[in-house]
């Protein structure tokens, strides 16, 4: 999220047309623009509104001008913001980059250490584990550092990390990883030696 200056003479506030005409209004705006070279228009976004109205917007491509509670911000590609009633717009912390164990790793111990990269603005992290890929009935551990450790049963586990800011607001989840714990001892080869 970054503050940027207001575009001069922006005509879009006048759009109050039937849906079928929205496109025409946009075309008219493009036609009146003076810019050198191709201009990347629009944005790729994801918007989630919770039951209490709190909204999280993630911008994957382009720029989005966001207004909430008298505040205005520009959200660029790769950033997310959260709007809550009566609170200023807040940048959502990025998802941590997981370090170890590697995705789809198999380990032979029940005590497993997990590490990830530091997220700027995070005051603590929530490590989540589940035997279900959708993280139903997940186990969790809150830690102040970028490492956690848990005693787990032999199984295939999925794990992910969420950064939490100083106000307790969670950021985006990391991409999940799969981990298999297999404590079965390796089979010994038995049989008669072959003498040569």
């Amino acid at each position, binding site marked *: 999220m970054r503050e940027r200056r207001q575009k001069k003479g922006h005509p879009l506030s006048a759009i109050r047309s039937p849906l079928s005409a929205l496109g025409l209004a946009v075309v008219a705006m493009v036609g009146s623009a003076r810019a050198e070279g191709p201009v990347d228009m*629009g944005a790729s976004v994801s918007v989630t509104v919770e039951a209490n109205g709190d909204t999280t917007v993630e911008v994957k491509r382009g720029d989005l001008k*966001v207004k909430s509670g008298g505040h205005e911000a520009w959200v660029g590609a790769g950033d997310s913001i959260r709007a809550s009633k009566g609170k200023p717009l807040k940048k959502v912390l990025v998802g941590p980059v997981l370090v170890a164990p590697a995705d789809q790793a198999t380990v032979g111990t029940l005590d497993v250490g997990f590490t990830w990269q530091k997220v700027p603005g995070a005051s603590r992290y929530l490590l989540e584990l589940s035997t279900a890929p959708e993280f139903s009935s997940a186990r969790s551990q809150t830690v102040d550092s970028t490492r956690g450790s848990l005693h787990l049963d032999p199984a295939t586990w999925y794990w992910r990390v969420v950064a939490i800011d100083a106000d307790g607001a969670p950021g985006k989840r990391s991409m999940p990883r799969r981990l298999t714990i297999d404590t079965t001892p390796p089979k010994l080869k038995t049989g008669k030696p072959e003498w040569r």
Partner: protein
Amino acid sequence: MVRGLGGKVELLRGNSADWVSASDGAALFEDDRMRTFKGAWAQLAFEGGSSLRVAEESLIAFGGGITVERGSVEGELAAGLRLKTPTLEAETVASRDIGFR
């Protein structure tokens, strides 16, 4: 217009008091509302090039842009399309500075 859907998706037309099942290819007008139930989804396309996928258990309204009252939408917003929720208003613009005549 609706460009594909799955599960139970309903429309409340601006001039009606009753929710009706949405159908593939249905046109959308100002003051219409759409709701999706659990496991349902709808893909919407707009003439300006915007396209949105409405996730399950969502409620959106059309008029002066698109209002997401609850749930989730994801997709491409053409420049100038307004997106509203109970707590914010968002608008896409060109990613480069443009001078308007």
